[in-house]
C-alpha cells in the first residue's frame, strides 16, 4: 500500500511546523517546501497525494502555482491556505480548482479534517491505479501520458465542438477513457467536466473500463436476428464466460453486441477486431476464437 504523501508549501514557518506535526501524527508522509521550483520538480517526479498550498505569495504566485500543479497532475487535490481569507478569494480559489480554501488562523484540527477527507478519496483512486498497473493498463497521472492526450487534442485545434472526436481517438488509442484523461481534457479545452461526462456516457462507443485485447461484436440487426444472431451471442457468452458488455478476466476478449454493421446479406455476422465473419453458426465459433491470442 502506497503511503499517502502530503507536500506542504508554506512560507509561514510557524504554520508549517504546526501542519507538519499534525499530519505526521495522523500517519501521513510529509515533505515541506518553500521554493516553487523544487515543489514542482518533486510533484512531477514523485506525484504526491495532496498539496497544501500557501496562497499568500507575492505576484499572485499562489494562484498560478495552483494552475501549474494541475497541469502536471490534473486530479491532484490542493488545499489552499491564506492568512487573509475573503469570500472573493474563496470563490476564486474554488473556481481555479482548489479542493478547499482555509484560513491559516483556524484550528489545525480543522485543516487536518479537510485534508483527511481528501486523502480518503485519494486512497481509493490510488488503489484503482495500482490495480490498473497490475493489469498493465496505462494511467494518466503523469505529464508523459498527458502529453499524448494533448497531441490528440491538438489535431483538431482544441476546438470545443470536436469533443466527440477527441474521446473517440482516446478510446481507440487507450481502449478506454481514464478519468484523469477526461479531467485533463475538460481543463485543456475549457469545457465543464459534467458536459464531457455526459457525452462519454451518452454514446455507446465509450467505456470507462479497459476493453480486452480483442473485441467481439456480434451483430443483432434484424436480418441477423431472424437468422439466429441472438443464439450466436448467447453461445459467445457461454464460451467466454462473460455477459455481453464485459471483458474476460485475462483481458483477452471483450464481448459487445452491435445493431447492424450493414452486412445483412451475410447474416448472421460477427466481427473480431473489425474483421468480419459472415454466415456464421454456433459450431464455427470455437475455431475462430482460437485464432486470437
Amino acid at each position, binding site marked *: 500500500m502506497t503511503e499517502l504523501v502530503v507536500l506542504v508549501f508554506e512560507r509561514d514557518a510557524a504554520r508549517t511546523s504546526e501542519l507538519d506535526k499534525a499530519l505526521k501524527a495522523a500517519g501521513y508522509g510529509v515533505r515541506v517546501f518553500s521554493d516553487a521550483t523544487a515543489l514542482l520538480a518533486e510533484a512531477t517526479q514523485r506525484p504526491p497525494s495532496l498539496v497544501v498550498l500557501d496562497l499568500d505569495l507575492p505576484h499572485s504566485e499562489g494562484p498560478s502555482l495552483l494552475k501549474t500543479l494541475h497541469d502536471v497532475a490534473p486530479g491532484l487535490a490542493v488545499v489552499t491556505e491564506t492568512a487573509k481569507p475573503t469570500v472573493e478569494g474563496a470563490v476564486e480559489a474554488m473556481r481555479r480548482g482548489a479542493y478547499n480554501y482555509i484560513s491559516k488562523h483556524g484550528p489545525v484540527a480543522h485543516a487536518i479534517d479537510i485534508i483527511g477527507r481528501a486523502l480518503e478519496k485519494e486512497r481509493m483512486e490510488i488503489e484503482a491505479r495500482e490495480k490498473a498497473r497490475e493489469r498493465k493498463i496505462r494511467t494518466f497521472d503523469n505529464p508523459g501520458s498527458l502529453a499524448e492526450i494533448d497531441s490528440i487534442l491538438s489535431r483538431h485545434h482544441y476546438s470545443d*465542438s470536436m469533443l466527440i472526436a477527441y474521446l*473517440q481517438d482516446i478510446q481507440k488509442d487507450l481502449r478506454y477513457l481514464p478519468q484523469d484523461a477526461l479531467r485533463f481534457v475538460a481543463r485543456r479545452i475549457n469545457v465543464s467536466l459534467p458536459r464531457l461526462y455526459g457525452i462519454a456516457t451518452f454514446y455507446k462507443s465509450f467505456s470507462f473500463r479497459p476493453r480486452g485485447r480483442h473485441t467481439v461484436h456480434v451483430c443483432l*440487426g*434484424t436480418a441477423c436476428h431472424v437468422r439466429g444472431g441472438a443464439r450466436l451471442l448467447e453461445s459467445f457468452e457461454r464460451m467466454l464466460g462473460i455477459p455481453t458488455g464485459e471483458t474476460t478476466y485475462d483481458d483477452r476478449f471483450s464481448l459487445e453486441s452491435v445493431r447492424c454493421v450493414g452486412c445483412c446479406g*451475410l447474416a448472421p455476422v460477427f466481427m473480431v477486431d473489425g474483421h468480419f465473419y459472415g454466415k456464421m453458426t454456433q459450431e464455427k465459433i470455437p475455431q475462430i476464437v482460437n485464432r486470437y491470442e
Partner: protein
Amino acid sequence: MSVGNETTHRKVTVCFGTACVAGGAREVLDALRREASRSGAGLEITVARGKCGASCDLAPVVTVEPGGAVYGRVKPSDAGEIVKHLVGGKVVRRLAVSSRPGLDSLPVLADIGFFKNQVLIAMRNRGRIDAESLDDYIANDGYLALAKALTEMTPEQVLGEVKQSGLRGRGGAGFPTGVKWEICRNSPGPDGKYVICNADEGDPGAFMDRSLLESDPHAVLEGMALGARAIGADCGYVYVREEYPLACERVIKAIEVARDCGLLGKNIMSTDFSFDIHVVRGAGAFVCGEETALMASIEGKEGRPRPRPPFPAQKGLWGKPTNINNVETWANVAPIVLRGGAWYASLGTAKSKGTKVFSLVGKVKNTGLIEVEMGTTLRQIVYDIGGGVLKDKKLKAVQTGGPSGGCIPADLIDLPVDYEELSKAGSIMGSGGLIVMDEETCMVDVAHYFVSFLEEESCGKCTPCREGITRMREILGRIVKGEGKRGDIELLQDLGKVIKDASLCGLGATSPNPVLTTLKYFRDEYEAHIFRKRCPAKVCKALIVYRVVAEKCTGCQRCVKACPVQAIVGPRSQPHNLDPAKCIKCGACYEVCKFDAIAGDAIYVE
C-alpha cells in the same frame, strides 16, 4: 459462347464491398493478379477492385468483361481457371451464377433474375467502377452534372429540376426534396448555410447507404455540391456512423481527391462557387439519425433531439439554415440535374417518383441491395428478384421501415411498393430495409426485438418514449415468456397511441409501429402466446421444447457434439435422445442437423 476475340483486352472485376471483403475478396484479387501476370497469352488482362455488386449471398463476386459474366463464391484457388476462361477457354460453370441451370451458355447479368429486374439510378455505377478511382467516376458521366449546373444553369434552375423530379427523401420520411431545398434557400442566411449528408444509417437490416458511400462516394459528393449550389450553402458535412469504418475512409479519400482536382473547395471548376465538405463520425447512437440529434452531435453535444419548430431549414447547425438529406437522396441528384427532372418523374408512381434502393435480406434466397422502380410489387421483389423464400419455406411477412416500420403480411404480396401504399398498409418506406420473414419467424418476438432495440437507443428526454417503450418491452417480454395476461393487447394499443402522439421526436413517435402492425395482422399469434401459452412459429424459448424425431435420426452424432450442455445422448447409428431438463434451447443441435431430425414443439406452459 465463349469470350469474344474482338479485343485483346479483358477485365476482371472483384467486388470490394464490406461483405465481399469479409468473404475473402482481397485474397481472390491477389490470386487473380498472380495468375493474370503469368498467363502471357498476348492479352491485356486488367484485374481491378470493383464497386459492390450488392449480391452479398454470392460473396465474393467476380465479374468478367466483355460479356458481363458473373462468378459467385469465388475462392483464391479458382483464379487459375478464371484466367483460363479469359484467355479463350470455356466458362467455369461451377462458379457461374446463372438463372438457367443446365444450359451451356455464358451467364450474363441481363439474364439473371436478381439483376435484370433492376433499374439503377442511385446505384448507376454498380459493378463498374473502382471506388477509389476518380477517373472511373468521371468516365461514367461523373461531375458532368456539376459542370452543367455551374456553367449553363442558375441555382434556381438546379432547384427547379429537383422539384420537378418529385424526388422524396430516401431516408425514411419521404418529404419532397425540392420543397425542402426551397425552404432552406429562402431562409435568410447572412452567416452561411449548411448541407448535411445523413449517413447514420441505423435501421438494422439496411445497408444501402454503407454500400453507396463505400463504392461510389463521388456520387454523394457531387449531389451535395449541386444541393449547396441550389441552396446557397458553402459548407457541408457527412455524418457517418462509426460502425462503417470503410465507408468513412472512402469518403474522406474521395473528398481529398476531389479537392486536389478542383472539384471541391474554393472556386470549383474555376467558377465563383466554393464549397467544402467535412466528415464527422458518429459514436454509437441510433438516435443521431434524427436530424436535430445529428446536428447536436456535430456540435459536440449529446445526441438528444430538439423540439421543432424551428426546423433545420430555418435554424439548424449552429443556428444557421441547414438542409439535411439522406445518402441515397444525394446520390440521385446528379442524374436528375443531368437528364432533367421530367425524366426522373417519368419513372415510378403518381406520388412516388423514380426508384428506390432496398436491402433485401432475411429468409430470402438472393440477399443483397436492389434498386427498383417505385410501384414494383412485393411479389416481384421477393420472388422474381429475390428468388423466393430461403429453403422454399412459406412466406409469412415482409418487414419494411426498420424499427419505425411494420410487417406486411404475405397475403398483401401484390402490394406495389411506394410511400402511400406502404403507409396505407400500416408500415412506412423507411430507409429501405426489406426483411423477409417465413413461417419460422415469430411476430411477437419480432415486435419484442424492435422495442428492445429502441429502448436501448432512446435518448431518454421525453416521458412517453423513455417510459412508454420500456413498458411496451416489459409487456412483450412477459408475453414471449408465456406470462401474458388478458388486457395486455388493449394496453399495448392504448399505450402505443399515446407514444405515437406525444413523443418529442420521430424515434418515439414511430416506436409503436412494429407492435401495432403485428397486432393488426397477426393478432392470432399474440392470442396464442397469451391465452394458450403457445408460440406457433416455435421461436419463443419458454414455450418450446426441443426433441429428436426418431424416425429421421440417422445417429450421426453431430448434435451430440454440438450440444454445449451434453443434453443429447445416443450411440452412433442409433436414434439419439434429448433430455429436456438439461436443454438450454440454444438451437445448436437444430443448426447442425442435416436430416431435419430436431424438432421444436410448441408446448403448454402451466
